[in-house]
């Protein structure tokens, strides 16, 4: 069992390295429109002096992911679309172990890179196919599939569900 886990971990690391290499190979495009997200820290793929700055177009260039869920803050079920944090970190060749996420109103949370999985969180930038305004918790809402995965219906996950996200720092 352990050996399988170790093997898959090795595979994942290998895949990460490969994608990092692939990402580095094609230069992260520089943002043309308003920058809505800035990633800094232990990342290897940048587009502006050690920073990775994203406008909507650059974000759209990353692998897209979506799911439908309700939240404790909204009414009804909405479909959210965006990039998985893990995909983003891979694309940036992140080498750190922790992620510090910050919002426009300076709300911030920290969590381990390992918590970023293919299930979530999702850096959603569209709700029901439309970009989200600041009034609608946009432009980026780090969101989890609360309805699908019970493990995400916890206080900690709710506290990590940071909206009006605009900065990410990958730390060692």
């Amino acid at each position: 069992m352990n050996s399988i886990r170790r093997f898959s971990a090795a595979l994942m690391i290998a895949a990460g390295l490969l994608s990092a290499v692939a990402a580095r190979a094609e230069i992260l495009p520089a943002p043309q429109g308003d920058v809505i997200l800035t990633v800094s820290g232990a990342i290897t793929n940048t587009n502006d002096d050690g920073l990775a700055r994203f406008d909507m177009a650059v974000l759209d260039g990353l692998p897209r992911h979506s799911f439908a869920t309700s939240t404790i803050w909204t009414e009804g079920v909405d479909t959210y679309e965006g990039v998985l944090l893990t995909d983003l970190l891979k694309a940036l060749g992140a080498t750190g172990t922790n992620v510090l996420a910050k919002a426009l109103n300076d709300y911030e949370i920290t969590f381990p890179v390992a918590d970023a999985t293919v299930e979530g969180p999702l850096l959603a930038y569209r709700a029901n196919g439309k970009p989200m305004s600041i009034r609608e918790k946009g432009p980026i809402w780090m969101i989890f599939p609360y309805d699908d995965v019970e493990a995400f219906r916890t206080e900690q996950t709710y506290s990590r569900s940071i909206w009006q996200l605009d900065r990410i720092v990958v730390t060692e």
Partner: protein
Amino acid sequence: MPSVLRSRPRYLRNVLFGFMAMAVGVLAVLSAEVRHEMRLFQEEPVDNVHWNLTQLELDLVLLLSAAELALERDEPPLDELRKRFDLFYSRTDLVRQGAMFERLDLEMIIRPLIARLDGFLQRATPLIDGSDASLRAALPALVEDVQTLRMDLRSLSIRTVEQYATQADLRRAELARLLRQVAATSAALLILLVALLGSVLYLNRQAERKTAEVLRVSSRLQATVATALDGVIVAGLDGRVLDFNQAAERIFGFSRDEAIGQGLDRLIIPARHVAAHEAGMARMRDTGKKKVVDAGRIQITAKRKSGEEFPVEMSITSNSGPDGMIFIAFLRDISEPVANERALLAARDKALAAEQAKTNFLAVMSHEMRTPLNGVIAAIEIVGRKAVDPSQAKFVRLAQSSAKLLLRHVNDVLDISKVEAGHLALSDSPFELAPMLASLTDVLRPVAAQKATEIELDIGPDLPPVRGDSFRLGQIVQNLLSNAVKFTDGGKVVLKAVLHPQGGGMALLDLSVTDSGIGIAPEDLERVFEDFVMLDPSYGRTDAGTGLGLAISRRLAEAMGGQIGAESEIGKGSRFWLRLPMRTADPAAPAPAESARTTAKPGADGPFLDLLVVEDNATNRTVMEEMLRLLGHRSTLAVDGREGVTKARVHRYDAILMDISMPVMDGMTATGLIRAEGLSKDSRIIAVTAHTMPEELERFRGAGMDDCLTKPMTIRDLARTLAAISAPPSPPPPAASPQPADAVLDALRIEDLRQALGADGIRRTVAQFLRDTTATMDRLRSTASSPAEARALCHELAGAAAMVGAAHLHRHFAGLEAQLRNGDAKALAAAQADTDRLWADAAAALGALTKA
């Protein structure tokens, strides 16, 4: 165990279970409620109310400061203001959309706040979304509006928090209550569980103890049953074997595994008994009646595996077990004991039969031997009469004494076999002890006198008459007396008799014979009563010792219910005693048969005889009378010789049956007197005696008797003897006189002598005889005072007379000898005239012979 005791833990447990069920039910309800409450906290979490309200306030403050900054500076950009508005706007959504508060049941509380916020946003949003110019123009109003909102928001949010806190308190209290209830219920449940556990542990321990006990008992029982020597078979009501122990395996040959589950009927019951067995089982099933069960030990036939049938001893008990009634059979193979018993019985029967056959053989042989032996003795007597040679005479005497000894042996053996075979008939008739004992001592006195021994009779003067078998008693006493005399030289023999009355018409005769003889060694004292024991072999060889006398006496005494024993001291003498229970005769009764009686002729075949029976023993008298009556004869009875003589003188009897030993006057004397005179002097006189010795026979003849009957006689003997009288109408008997009817000299003997010696020889012999006899006769006359010497002289004279063929003289002297032996001391003197005359006759005849 009584059911009440057994049910108590069960009842307790039931109650416990009831309480537990209730507790579990309560817990289930409570936990459902708790789960519901917990879901509010856990599964439907909401964002923190305080946090959001604070954030709302913070965002409003930040918006206010951005607005105030924009108003102060009065210049662009207004981006910061717009961003702050957007952030505030987005925050108000949380409140306005109400999802959070709805879930927390805070809708009503938050409603005023929402209304206030909605109002503000409706006013402010068009301004913020408008152009910079219009926004700037509206800034002062906006600032004022925001300030007002802040104050309102403050108080509203405080109120909301208060209300929320109250509600939260209520909810917590509710939860706490629930939890307390759960805890209480759990505690109760726990206590119940502990109680139940205790009860279970207690029951378990009891069960363990009981199980151990049951195991111990059952293993002990198992071991007992397994090692029992008896076969144990347990069967159910259906007759199938439930258990089969080792002994049963051994007995029946089936292994336990083979036997278990099988029906008894096919296993061990013989085919012919199966139907009865099944009927019995059916009866027991239907009626519950038991016949064999609990009936103790019974013997039945069982069957082995091999099919062999054999006897078993069996007992069955029943017991009602948990699976219904069971039967336990205990079986013992008794084929061996039964076979042994059978063999033993067969052996015993065989031995008894053999013993009986031997006894019968002895009895028959003894009886049959007597007849030829009598012939032998008679022949020897005749030969002895003619013996001329002293050496021949010696051998003849030897032959005579041997023959006599042999006859005694035969008689003794006959007696023993009679007793042993149970053929001894004991008579029961009244008799007087004193005269009987006196006659016994009288008979032996001459013999004792020869050995210078005195016989003393010591009996009380007033012995009452008794009933019993006087003949057998006499036989014992005679034996004891003759033994005493035999072993005593120059001493004294005392016969003592005492009768101890015992009451109830019984008396104990205590009789003893004491001598001053050689005595008996202590180690031999018991042996003397055994068969063929002779303590002094040398004596036995010389005299008539059979070694059976005391053995017979012992048997007779025991047959009469008495005891016999001896005490002795070597060199000082012996004392033999006899203790005999006797019935006392009624002293008032008339003396036995004093007068003659006449019985009518019953009309039987054969000639009618008129008979006189002279007999002192009442029983014998009665028996004879009865026998004669049966034979069709008439009988007259006389109790002694004197009475017989009196009766014979006045009546002519066809025959006289004369007892020899009688008180007052003996048979021989009476015979002589009857022959001397009277109407019956020619009648046939038949001696009736227990003494069957041939020598005696000769004596009887010499005394004038014609025939002899031996007691105890049979009716056949009597008939035969009497038939000889009547069948051939006999010629008138010879003249009744002491003189013989035949010749003075025995012609045959004379002829024998003549042939053997020649004329000269006869002459010499006769001369010698005459000389010797004359001298002997003189001695006889001069020694009349000593009966023993006289008897010896008579014996010598009789022998000498027989030798020369002086038959008459021989008979005379032989008769005298017998009389002397019987103690008739006066016989010699009484017969003096006859002696002289006969001597003269014989001398004359012999003298004539020698001259011829």
